[in-house]
């Protein structure tokens, strides 16, 4: 499965990357505007904390700015940013309070993440994803929401592909159980 970000070439992006790599912050801001939603969404789903997700999003773009000259323009900027976001989020999650590290199967909700106008079904689903244990949620988010293959997701998470598949299976099972519980 291809990452969603790789759907369709974005001609202007390469030029913006080159300008940003040369030190043009305005070009980098345009890249931020284009990608911040998906990066923040990823950080929020991995950390389950809106404030931490904001920090992770900022760090992702700061790290990207520093590493931009090493970025190969043939690859997807979106995928590259997501790799950085995953690294930053997992690192911050490990350093964060033990409350966040604990398995969240029994109803730990996302803190401050969703707007009131979010459709109930989406909110329910996001809540169920947020309640998954870290490892299962990581695999599910990268594979099912962001469209990365098992191999890509495993590489981003620094785990074996088999482990990633197992985590995904576990995530789907837990998700069904939780949604079934809510339906009933």
């Amino acid at each position, binding site marked *: 499965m291809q990452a*969603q970000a790789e759907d369709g070439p974005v001609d202007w992006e390469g030029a913006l990357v080159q300008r*940003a*790599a*040369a*030190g043009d*912050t305005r070009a*980098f*801001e345009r890249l*931020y*505007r284009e990608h*911040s*939603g*998906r990066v*923040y*969404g*990823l950080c*929020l789903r991995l950390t389950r904390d*809106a404030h931490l*997700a*904001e920090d992770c*999003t*900022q760090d992702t*773009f*700061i790290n990207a*700015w*520093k590493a*931009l*000259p*090493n970025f190969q323009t043939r690859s997807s900027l979106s995928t590259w940013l997501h790799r950085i976001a995953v690294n930053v989020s997992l690192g911050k999650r490990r350093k964060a309070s033990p409350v966040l590290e604990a398995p969240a199967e029994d109803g730990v909700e996302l803190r*401050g*993440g969703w707007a009131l106008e979010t459709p109930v*079904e*989406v909110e*329910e*689903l*996001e809540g*169920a*994803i947020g309640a998954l244990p870290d490892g299962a949620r990581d695999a*599910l988010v990268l594979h*099912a*929401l*962001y*469209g990365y293959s098992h191999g890509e997701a495993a590489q981003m998470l620094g785990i074996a592909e088999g482990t990633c598949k197992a985590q995904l299976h576990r995530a*789907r099972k837990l*998700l*069904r159980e939780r*949604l*079934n519980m*809510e*339906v009933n």
Partner: protein
Amino acid sequence: MSGPEERKVRSLSELSAAIEPPRDLWPEIEARLKSAAGAAAPPAARARVAQLRWLAAAAMVASVAVGVWIGRDLGPLGARVTAPPAATSLTGMSEGAAVDAAYVSDPRYRHERAQLLKSLQAQLDAMPEPARAKVTASLASIETAKKDLESALGKDPSNALLQELLINTYQDEMRVLTDVHEASDPGRGI
């Protein structure tokens, strides 16, 4: 299992991957980039400035070296070995390459440099081959540094470091020209 919960699980891919941050994070990102100033500049830009700094330093070293060389190598001009006809071309010296830095556009500087350049070829012709080679290499090194710095300033005109390096390089060039001129003056030999 094929109930509504299964349908929801299957609809995971329909969830939007993007969630807009609750506030604009760019101002803080930009402030962090600026607060780190040079340190936060992309390595390519930092490497370019570092490269130019080395180039300017090399030009300065070359100018100092040529002064020492001339002092060591040249006696009074009259006693010098007759040099072969000029093989050195000074067409590489870019008279019109000066940027609008105050130092460079100063009429006294421009006049003095023009005078030194005018007599340079004759002075080089009168030099022993090793000294001429040394001076020519030094001036070529300075010329390269000037062109690269001017080119970099064209892209980043407000860069104070580049401006300073360029002025230093012009000063190095004047030092070499002056050294050559004084070494060629029988009354003033170094």
